[in-house]
């Protein structure tokens, strides 16, 4: 059935395959059909009705997102009738959405606004009917403004797919609403997948707009930026660069042009995480009862365990996440070196993630009473800051990250993609166990976009059962299996976001499988180009361990943490006007 055939769209002939929808064929051939509720990551819902097309011989108009092509089909995408219907429909959709264009994650790429212009919708015909709907805050991570919701239901599905189901559909008819669950057994884990799948910009990271300048307003403080692996191959999307363009140097130069003192690289933090995690794995391999070891650098996954599966808390590695370790080192190791009072340092992490906004508020992470990281900007937030300060990434001359906390291995870069944490840890664990500097570098079996990846890895004659969970929605099944058979895995990586952090809730929108793939490819290419591709060979790692983390206690204090069972707090509804 894989053979192709021809269909006609607007009188032109196009090749099509069985199982493709009209919309897919059109998009492949750059024929524009508007969509709002359609998302390539999700099920087809057919509820916005904006993608209607005319199929010759059919009485009723059909939604192109759902109808599969057939040989000989003749389709018209833009008849006067269709145009009129889209105009009218948009007038209705637009007036159930409160505009906040200056502070919206879609910013200049808003489809709603583009479509109303394109179809000359007269949005003054009706008054905004959702003005009085509430705004919710999900801890310190996300804001959900239900005034903007156009009832497409993407977020409900995506949250369900994440295995969380915190967003629920309530009510009927025009009173239908997406609301955070009041069920005490359901809580948000702050992955932000709802945000990047919402066509109406109803979600945003806390402070994503109003407070982006906070880092630049720190009087009398040394402001240090550090940026995550996944940011470098996706930031460009915000400025029209082709997908996967690595912008490391320009990104650093851009931040510096804002008057920031130092820019370090979280990939180095990842190298520290790898070192500590490899050690922990080796210790635990001695006592099988303590396995599997589970990664913990994704705060959404950690919250998921702490809330939904607290019985697994002991299996989470106690190693801190990369930006938290590096933030701690900035305020200790680096502060000492530079003779700066740590209290005068303000650390900003640029992350692909909104859960990291929550992570930095965890009190147990404090180092000598100070938060290792003071502020988290998302990738989008940084772009917003660049736009505000007219930083032109096209023109700016690339710079290198600062010495010494800017130097990282290739392993530190691939942390941004699913399987990357595992691969980095394996590179170093193998070397540590075999007591030689170089061993196998690439572990291709843990790469790629499959939901659950499994492999057997031979280390020092023993075989290690490893698993990589790509997307939180696949975690439940694995955890349930582990309950019955703890021997299933020795080492398990879980990243909440599909694709890993490159698909994170702080990343540019839109997102899709193709986009995530490209961003990941970008990271793997950067890794390949590095001369040093393992954490333990990184000279900065060696230096810091030699000079500063030499005693175990210090290393433990700076690089490890602990977890505890979490319970649901009440829903936080922001009073009108505050937002």
């Amino acid at each position, binding site marked *: 059935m894989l053979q192709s055939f021809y269909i006609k769209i607007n009188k032109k002939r196009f090749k099509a395959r069985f199982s493709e929808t009209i919309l897919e064929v059109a998009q492949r051939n750059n024929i524009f059909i508007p969509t709002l509720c359609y998302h390539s990551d999700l099920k087809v819902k057919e509820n916005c009705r904006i993608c209607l097309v005319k199929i010759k011989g059919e009485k009723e*108009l059909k939604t192109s997102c759902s109808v599969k092509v057939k040989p000989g089909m003749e389709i018209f995408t833009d008849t006067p009738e269709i145009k009129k219907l889209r105009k009218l429909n948009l007038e209705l959709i637009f007036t159930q959405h409160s505009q906040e264009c200056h502070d919206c994650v879609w910013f200049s790429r808003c489809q709603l606004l583009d479509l109303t212009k394109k179809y000359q919708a007269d949005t003054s015909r009706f008054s905004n009917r959702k003005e009085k709907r509430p705004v919710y805050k999900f801890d310190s991570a996300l804001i959900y403004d239900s005034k903007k919701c156009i009832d497409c239901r993407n977020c409900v599905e995506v949250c369900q797919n994440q295995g969380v189901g915190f967003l629920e559909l309530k009510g009927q008819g025009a009173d239908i609403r997406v609301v955070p669950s009041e069920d005490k057994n359901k809580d948000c884990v702050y992955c932000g997948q709802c945000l990047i799948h919402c066509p109406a910009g109803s979600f945003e990271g806390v402070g994503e707009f109003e407070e982006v300048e906070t880092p630049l307003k720190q009087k009398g403080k040394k402001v240090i930026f550090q940026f995550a692996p996944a940011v470098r191959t996706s930031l460009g999307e915000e400025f029209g660069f082709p997908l996967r363009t690595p912008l490391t140097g320009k990104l650093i130069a851009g931040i510096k042009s804002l008057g920031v003192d130092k820019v370090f690289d979280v990939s180095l933090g990842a190298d520290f995480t790898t070192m500590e995690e490899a050690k922990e794995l080796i210790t635990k391999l001695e006592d099988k009862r303590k396995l599997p070891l589970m990664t913990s650098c994704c705060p959404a996954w950690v919250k998921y365990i702490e809330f939904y599966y607290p019985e697994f808390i002991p299996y989470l590695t106690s190693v801190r996440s990369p930006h938290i370790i590096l933030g701690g080192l900035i305020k200790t190791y680096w502060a000492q070196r530079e003779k700066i009072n740590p209290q005068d340092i303000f650390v900003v992490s640029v992350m692909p993630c909104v859960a990291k906004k929550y992570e930095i508020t965890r009190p147990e992470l404090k180092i000598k009473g100070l938060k290792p990281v003071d502020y988290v900007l998302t990738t989008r937030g940084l772009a917003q800051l660049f736009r505000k300060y007219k930083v032109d990434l096209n023109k700016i001359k690339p710079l290198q990250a600062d010495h010494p906390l800017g130097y990282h291995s290739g392993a530190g870069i691939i942390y941004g993609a699913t399987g990357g944490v595992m691969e980095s840890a394996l590179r170093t664990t193998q070397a540590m166990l075999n007591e030689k500097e170089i061993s196998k570098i690439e572990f291709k079996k843990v790469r790629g976009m499959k939901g659950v990846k499994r492999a057997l890895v031979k280390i020092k004659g023993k075989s290690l059962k490893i698993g990589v969970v790509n997307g939180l929605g696949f975690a439940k099944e694995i955890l349930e299996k582990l309950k019955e058979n703890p021997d299933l895995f020795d080492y398990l990586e879980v990243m909440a976001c599909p694709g890993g952090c490159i698909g994170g809730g702080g990343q540019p929108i839109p997102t899709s499988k193709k986009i995530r793939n490209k961003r990941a490819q970008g990271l793997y290419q950067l890794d390949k180009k590095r001369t040093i591709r393992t954490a333990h060979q990184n000279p900065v790692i060696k230096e810091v361990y030699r000079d500063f983390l030499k005693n175990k206690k210090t290393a433990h204090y700076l690089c490890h943490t602990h977890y505890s069972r979490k319970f649901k707090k009440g829903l936080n509804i922001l009073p009108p006007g505050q937002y």
Partner: protein
Amino acid sequence: MSPEKVIQKIKKAGLKGRGGAEFPTALKWEMVRKVKAEKKYLIANGSEGEPKVFKDEFILKTHPFELIEGIKIAQETIKAAKAYLYLRKDFFQKYKKKLEKIIKEKNLPIIIFKKQGGYLCGEETTLVESLEGRRLEPRSRPPYPSEKGLWDCPTLINNVETLYYVSRIINNNYQGERLYSISGGDHPGVYELSADLSLKQVLKKTGNWPNFKFFVQVGGGASGEILLTRELNQTGSGLGAIIIYPEDKTNPVSLMKKWIDFFIQENCGKCSPCREGVYRLKELLSQKNPDQEIIKDLLFLLEKSSFCPFGKAMAQPFSSLIKKVGIFNKNK
């Protein structure tokens, strides 16, 4: 009688679905029968949700034996593992005992199920969602219930009136009748008369032809089309309701408000034209001088873009009323 023969007989009798869509019954049965599947289901729909339609209850009350027999015939013909008799809440309460007794005596695999929602559950795919215990909303089509219905198995869904007539056909006791729910005249009630009669004949035969100026709504009391006196030479359609409105005592705007209240209450909220369109229609109708252009636009959108038959059919009463009776040029 062999399944082929049963279907042949129904085909010959020319029976069409009485749930509103008027799809040829024999064809529907044949479709479900043809599909290869381990399990199939039958649903008898007695969920009567539209205003001024009373015929489902009429059957439950006066022809329960024929109904159960019709279900049995359908079940055997398509080889359904189970049949569900889906009843409106009050029907469930009133007729459950009586029906269960018949089912028990004949030892049939028929389960009586209490309806969850309102009008929308009369729509086939919503009915299936309702039986599966989900949110009461229509499903995408394809797949049609005849391929993938209840629990993804091929499912035949027939209105109780259709099944009642099936038993009459098989027992050689059918002359092309249908049920008419008549209201607004001198002798309101449910009547069983030939489906070939014109509406005028039906009204006259039942003593309901008014001696005042009037117009009627035919089909159902919310989604039915408005017809003027001179248009009554056509036959009945849809759910078979005929509602008489005296011309000088009916305020078209109030009538529309009544309809819209019904649609607002029954609207599921899934698709934007219907959810938003109905909301805005209500908003407009509560204004003193609503913009007729916008009302027409909304009706056009509802008819052409709604997700399910419910939204699509909603435009009909309004459009026909506005066109034929006019709404705002009257000083009532």
